[in-house]
């Protein structure tokens, strides 16, 4: 049991380290928005910190999350053009 907890704690730590490392590679505003959101900051605070309007925070976070995900995917996934959505 103890071993499991230790292993899971270690995995969580590694995940956090990877998350930190990955966010630092994002554009500054995206990185800052994600970190603030993770700390529980509200939209107004995030908007003030980045210098955008509060209505822009949700789209910014969606794009920031997508960029973060792309950083953790193979490089060819990152660079290819987005698939055109179908209606």
């Amino acid at each position: 049991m103890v071993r499991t907890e230790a292993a899971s704690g270690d995995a969580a730590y590694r995940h956090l380290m990877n998350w930190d490392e990955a966010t630092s590679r994002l554009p500054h505003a995206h990185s800052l928005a994600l970190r603030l959101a993770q700390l529980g900051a509200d939209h107004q605070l995030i908007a003030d910190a980045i210098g955008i309007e509060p209505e822009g925070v949700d789209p910014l976070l969606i794009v920031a999350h997508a960029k973060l995900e792309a950083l953790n995917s193979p490089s060819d996934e990152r660079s290819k053009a987005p698939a055109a959505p179908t209606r």
Partner: protein
Amino acid sequence: MAGVRGDLSSVLGAAVRAWPLVGRRQELSYVLETLTRGGGRGVVLAGEAGVGKTRLAKAAREAIVDLGWATEWISATMSARSVPLAALAQFLPPPDEDNQVDQLAYFARVRRAIASRASESGLLLIVDDAHALDEASAALVHHLGVSSPTALILTVRAGEPCPDAITALWKEGLLDRLDVQALAREEVHELVVATLGDDVDGAIPESLWRACNGNALYLRELLIDAATARTLTYDDARWRWNGPVAGGPRLDELVEGRMAALSTDRRRVLEVLAVGEPLPPAALGLSATSDVLAHLERLGLVAMAVDGNRLDVRIGHPLHAEVLRRRLPVADHRRICCELADWLSETGSRRSGDVLRVATWRLDSGDISDPDLLCRAASLAAAGHDNAAAERLARAALAVQPSFAAGLQLGAVLCRQAAFGEAIQVLGRLEGSEPDDAHVARLAFTRSQALYAGLGRRVDAQHVLEHALTRLGESESGGILRGQLVAIMAMSGDTTTARAIGLELLDSPDERTQLRSITGAGAAFSVAGQTDLVLRATDIALEAALRLHEELPAAAAWVMSTRMFALFLAGRFDETEQLVNLVEAVGGPQASPGQPGGAYLELVRGRVALARGQAQTAMRHLQVGASAVVRGENAGLDAWRCALLAEAAALVGDNATAMEAAKNSEEFFVPTILRYEGDRRRALAWVMTLDGRASTAVRELLAVAAMAADDGQHVVEANTRHDLVRLGQLDQSARLAELADEVDGVLGVAYRDHAAALVASDVAQLEAASQRFEEIGLLLIAAEAAQAASAVATQMGLRSRAAASTRRATTLLAACQGARTPALAAFGTLRPLSEREREVATLAGKGHTNREIADLLTVSIRTVETHLYQAFAKLGVTNRRQLRERLEDDVT
């Protein structure tokens, strides 16, 4: 993307026409999903000028056209703003016959006129620079947003006033607002490479990133201006940047355009900031809540940040400051400097950097009446690694009033810029005028540095140190000089003596002596394999360095670089990289790739990547900082860097780069600096091996091993003898077994076991060796061991084990970025023949002599021999009969 080649016009053409969309995949996905989801009406793309809003809108238009949509594009301009509805003129129906315009009815007709242009799939209307729309057009666009099926993309410039009707579109939730951000560092690097191609000098992308700050438009203009001014050139198959990264007329025009509408007062605020940033509002004659600052901040022309208790104002973008300074008349520049110096002197300096700022402003304004101030400022500039500023200030101080302090400062900063000859002259004049023991030591130290590291005069350097030590007697100040003696011995390749003296110095009760000797003694013990001792010593020294930070600001860097050297020599690569990242994070500007400190970090990264088999990553790191690493106290490093670069290039078959780098390594080699010599010569031996000169390489490696053995450099010897084992010299295994006991950590044991496994041809031992190397991170060697296991298993008829080992080798090799070595080539199938090699091999297999093949293909015999060697190695054959059979097998 293929790189742009050749003349200026192709550069301009590529930069302007084929400017690639980089780093916007997620934004584009967001826009397309918003446009095409049910109920989504569109997106407002907001952002500063040049960030790429219009480029993103164009990309969205291209994608949506592919889905069968119709699109319309409107560009609003400030000049057309005075004419109502001018931006939408293309859609306007004629007014009613009685010329009475009912606005709602008219809008409905316009809406229908626009809707009539839709295809079956839909219509997308793009309004570029919607903030510049006149009120009536803005109201109409708002009307479309409220009541039309037409999808919209609007671009608006952040900070610019925007018509209320446009703002309401996102405030009322009718359209999403997506703020387009500046590109990240990696994206700028990618954009530069996508535009110019792979053959770009390593430091260019980073320099451009620092200049453009992620603004794609500025990046484009910088490239075009640089190509026009021939600052950016394409020589010897590489893009090179000659001189500082700064814009030209196109960029000036662009930046001036952003400031054109400013009043004289507001432009003056920017000019003062361009000269003196960062400044508090008071220095600009403004209050923190001033409307002027708020306005400039909204426009993105200034940025404000709280630093401690002080509110700092800066120019919004580094290139704006560059342009403003360039266009400022000299007289205005001098007057601003004078006013700023007066202001800071009157308000009282609060930070150590303020002294440097006052002195620099005084000097820039032509006031050199205070030599003490200039001298103190020179010290501060030197501490901040701003060598050019330190030299200028020290020279000014000396010109006004010669002093020991200013002379020593000038001599030291000249050394750091590799001007050793002048440094020796300046420093030599100071002997006998030292004010105290500490300065006797500092002068002797700096002179010995210039003599040894700079001019290679080891004996003279030792003489200066010994003479000063005689003068100092038992004085505590001698610690620095004894440390320097050890460093010179370690650097000269006499690590045995360095260890003998160094151990005593590391144990010295005087922390300054410990710190001064850590680099030399640490290196001497590291190459001897006494990693644990070095790590313990650096643990203790780091505490001392932190305690003495004020007095010896560079001491922490000495300790860290010593620890790095020990860690990567011991094969502890993860820890090395963590330390490199840490030093870079806390190191400030001197840890940037353009500075010697940062160049060393890149070199260590390259060395680690090379050991891991990641040859292309290694090449990238080793090409960065090419011009910074050679200077001053880092003399000798560049020869090492070039050798490692040559090895990395040779591993991936980039012979041109390998040969050029190997040649440079010899050219930059400083005969008296031998600290890296074992590693350097090993790297060059690998270049020979991969170039087909295996027997010469073996002789060279044997010589390196003997040199290392003579001097007790056990790690260097173990690395070298293991290289020999990898080249088939299995008689090295006995000595490797002895060395495993001399070297701390896992590396020596791994080498010993690998050699023993090869000697015994033992599948299980080879599998274990591969596993061990993989754990250490030596993936290329792990792949070699796995391939050897596969070969032995095949000979023994153990087919499934052979297949498993081959799979393992293939997986490991996949992480090695195309790197191949002879041990791998012997197993053929993993490495395909090049077209030329196959051609030569086929002719040889048919019985042609090398001379005949050379004549047939119009190449030299040497070239034929090289291709044949490669083909033999890759296919694992040893004669022409086997070659023919193997090629026939391949065909069938």
